[in-house]
């Protein structure tokens, strides 16, 4: 299957600033996208998701934007905090033969500078 990729492997931001993490996907059949946060020694933790019939979705301090025209996904984190330091993955999900699985990109490491 086609893979999801990320533009930047690392991102450093000052505490209190906004963070933007970008992701490109290539499978036009994907209809559901998820952002995960992974801290050291832990499994991926769900942050926010969006379906292909939407272009924006907001959560608590996070916003996901989907641009289907250029197959681009972004995660915006408002007022970034030290606890936001982690690796962030976008993943795409499409149904195959009655099952579904996630395709992950390499990830972006976010470092928040106090």
């Amino acid at each position, binding site marked *: 299957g086609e893979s*999801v990729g990320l533009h930047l492997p690392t991102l450093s931001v000052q505490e209190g600033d906004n963070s933007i993490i970008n992701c490109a996907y290539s499978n036009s059949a994907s209809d*559901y996208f*998820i952002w*995960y946060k992974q801290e050291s*020694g*832990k*499994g*991926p*933790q*769900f942050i926010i*998701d969006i379906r292909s019939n939407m272009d924006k979705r907001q959560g608590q301090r996070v916003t996901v934007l989907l641009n289907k025209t250029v197959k681009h996904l972004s995660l915006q984190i408002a007022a970034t905090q030290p606890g936001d330091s982690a690796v962030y*993955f976008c*993943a795409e*999900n499409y149904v*195959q*033969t*009655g*099952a*579904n*699985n*996630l*395709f*992950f*990109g*390499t*990830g972006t490491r976010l470092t928040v500078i106090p």
Partner: protein
Amino acid sequence: DAGVTQSPTHLIKTRGQQVTLRCSPKSGHDTVSWYQQALGQGPQFIFQYYEEEERQRGNFPDRFSGHQFPNYSSELNVNALLLGDSALYLCASSPHRIDGYTFGSGTRLTVV
């Protein structure tokens, strides 16, 4: 409410050996998927189980096999271990046909 639990948390095996990893899904979830995450990489889909059958498989050799039990728990077996099998193995569960997974914390497998 317990989430996804995996055991063991860490494991060291010798090349050529066999290993079994275990996963208990989140309460209410009947579908279990396994992922391999190499260091510095994103998780890669191995396979998914529902109703005790393998429903979908990623690009992994037959050395990787699995099983799902009537209580929805699952095992991942890897035979003839290679050094390249060293990775974090993640189990994820979900309700069937519902998007989005809950991941466990993984089993760190080191093959020496």
